[in-house]
């Protein structure tokens, strides 16, 4: 309970990804975001996701990642459900099966796969970035790029605030439990949200006062205790990434984003399984969350 981890934050380590300069990683995340959102073939996106998972495993951040992914899953299941019955595709849709009031469409299954894989893979890559980047380094990098102080501050602080909010949540749940309030399941979660946010506002206020008192964001040259340098490896990787991105976008252009929505025909049972799976998955995750809070 006390180390209930909902959202990923920095995981200290010395892996390859930890050692890369944040600039390199930011370019990768932005590149992946663009690429994945133009690719329309679920198989390619799936392959990309597998690569990301391997990288996460190699960075020793898989446990934290898995915990944060839990938060994303209800959204994914919801997305699959709605896409199958009402695809984000131009009509006419090809019906595959009928389940009570719901008609399941082939285009729906296709777009459900593409959209959910896109979200999962990009989110995973972004999480990998957050988990392997020291928040202070992110701030330094953003300032180096000329991002305004306020925006750099907002981004960095938000990431740093996550563990604080988690702690606050646990304190409030314990306090409610010690006052004999129901402290398990979702009914306990709801009344604690308001105090958590009220507490969070106070925290942020105090935090900004502290940071300003330490001359954070003041004028003049800045130094860093963390010797943050763009290595030869970083420069090489950035150049290679840019070349690769140009290549990828050329391929995407001539292949029209590998759109296979017309070729891929899904069998009706697959659509039904996916559809029911999304409903079961959605509620399953909720039950799992509720049980985790209980323990």
């Amino acid at each position, binding site marked *: 309970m006390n180390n209930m981890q909902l959202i990923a934050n920095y995981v200290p380590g010395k892996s390859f990804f930890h050692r890369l300069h944040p600039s390199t990683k930011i370019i990768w995340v932005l590149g992946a975001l663009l690429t994945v959102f133009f690719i329309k073939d679920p198989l390619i996106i799936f392959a990309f996701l597998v690569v990301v998972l391997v990288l996460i495993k190699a960075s020793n951040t898989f446990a934290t990642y898995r915990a944060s992914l839990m938060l994303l899953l209800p959204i994914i299941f919801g997305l699959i459900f709605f896409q199958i019955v009402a695809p984000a595709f131009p009509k006419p849709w090809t019906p595959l099966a009928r389940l009570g009031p719901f008609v399941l469409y082939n285009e729906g299954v296709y777009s459900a796969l593409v959209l959910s894989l896109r979200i999962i893979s990009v989110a995973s890559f972004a999480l990998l970035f957050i988990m392997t980047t020291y928040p202070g380094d992110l701030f330094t990098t953003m300032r180096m790029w000329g991002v305004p102080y306020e925006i750099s501050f907002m981004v960095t602080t938000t990431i740093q605030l996550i563990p604080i909010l988690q702690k606050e949540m646990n304190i409030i749940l314990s306090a409610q439990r010690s006052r004999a309030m129901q402290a398990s399941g979702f009914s306990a979660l709801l009344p604690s949200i308001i105090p958590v946010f009220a507490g969070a506002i106070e925290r942020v206020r105090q935090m900004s006062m502290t940071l300003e008192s330490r001359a954070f964001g003041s004028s003049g040259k800045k130094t860093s*205790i963390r010797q943050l340098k763009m290595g030869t490896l970083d420069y090489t990787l950035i150049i290679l990434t840019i070349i690769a991105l140009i290549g990828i976008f050329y391929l995407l252009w001539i292949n029209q984003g590998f759109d296979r929505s017309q070729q891929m025909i899904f069998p009706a049972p697959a659509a039904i399984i996916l559809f029911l799976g999304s409903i079961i998955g959605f509620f399953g995750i909720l039950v799992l969350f509720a049980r985790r809070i209980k323990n």
Partner: protein
Amino acid sequence: MTATNAAKEPIIRVEGLSFKYATATEKALKEINFTVFPGEYVAILGLSGAGKTTLCLSLNGIIPQMVMGEKEGRCLIKGQDTDEVPVREMAKTVGMVFDNPEYQLTQLTVEGEVALGLENLGIPYEEMLTRIKEALKVVGLEGLEERSPMQLSGGQQQRLAIAAAMAMYPEILVLDEPTTNLDPIGKEEVFEVLQRLNREKGMTIVIAEHEVEVIAEYADRVIILDRGELITNGPPAEVFNDVETISRLGLRTPQVTEFGYRLKKKGHNLPEQLPITLQDAVKKYSGVGGKK
């Protein structure tokens, strides 16, 4: 002190300072006037709610810049108005230690916490390492560099906050009840550290504190606040000898002074100026009861 002060410019000049929090009906500070000269060690004494924190926060511009409310009067730090200079620039002159230690730790490691201020001042890497080492040694946290501040005890967190402010070598260090979570020995240590900074580096120190014994021993000057008003401002020997005023405000004098005061009331012949520290008391009271 007074002789040299005449020649020096005050480093802090508070003129008619009043402040009312946006959510409050009454003013937290009413018409405060005082000056502090470079190298002074000033203690602010008062009950909870007397305005100590408000006064401390005014000294680097957090009030009125980051706290909503109505401010009147001026607060000048080295001639610069706290209304005009952003807190982050003022931080180069005024170091600040807040009263709740946990909230003021923002970094992932103890080392990073102390480094934060130094990074923002642009201190070169090598010197940064020396200063961090020094600051952590002074507050007794050496060897914990890689620890997360969240895993420290309350007292350790408070000392870390002091180290972080101190390492920036500010000309003025303002501390708002920095020893509330410390045990008696820890308190003593903090006060000794502050005295050393004051004597050796000539750092001006303004500290809000409850503990009268330590104030009597270390401070050059005591300012007493009561419900937002400045009641007294003077050297501790003078302030603490006014036992009536102090007890009327619900505060305490050092026990040795109280002791002398009560004896005097019973008709004992004691010096006009009562001692305020234990050492002084031993000198002044010896012989009072007669020797065996």
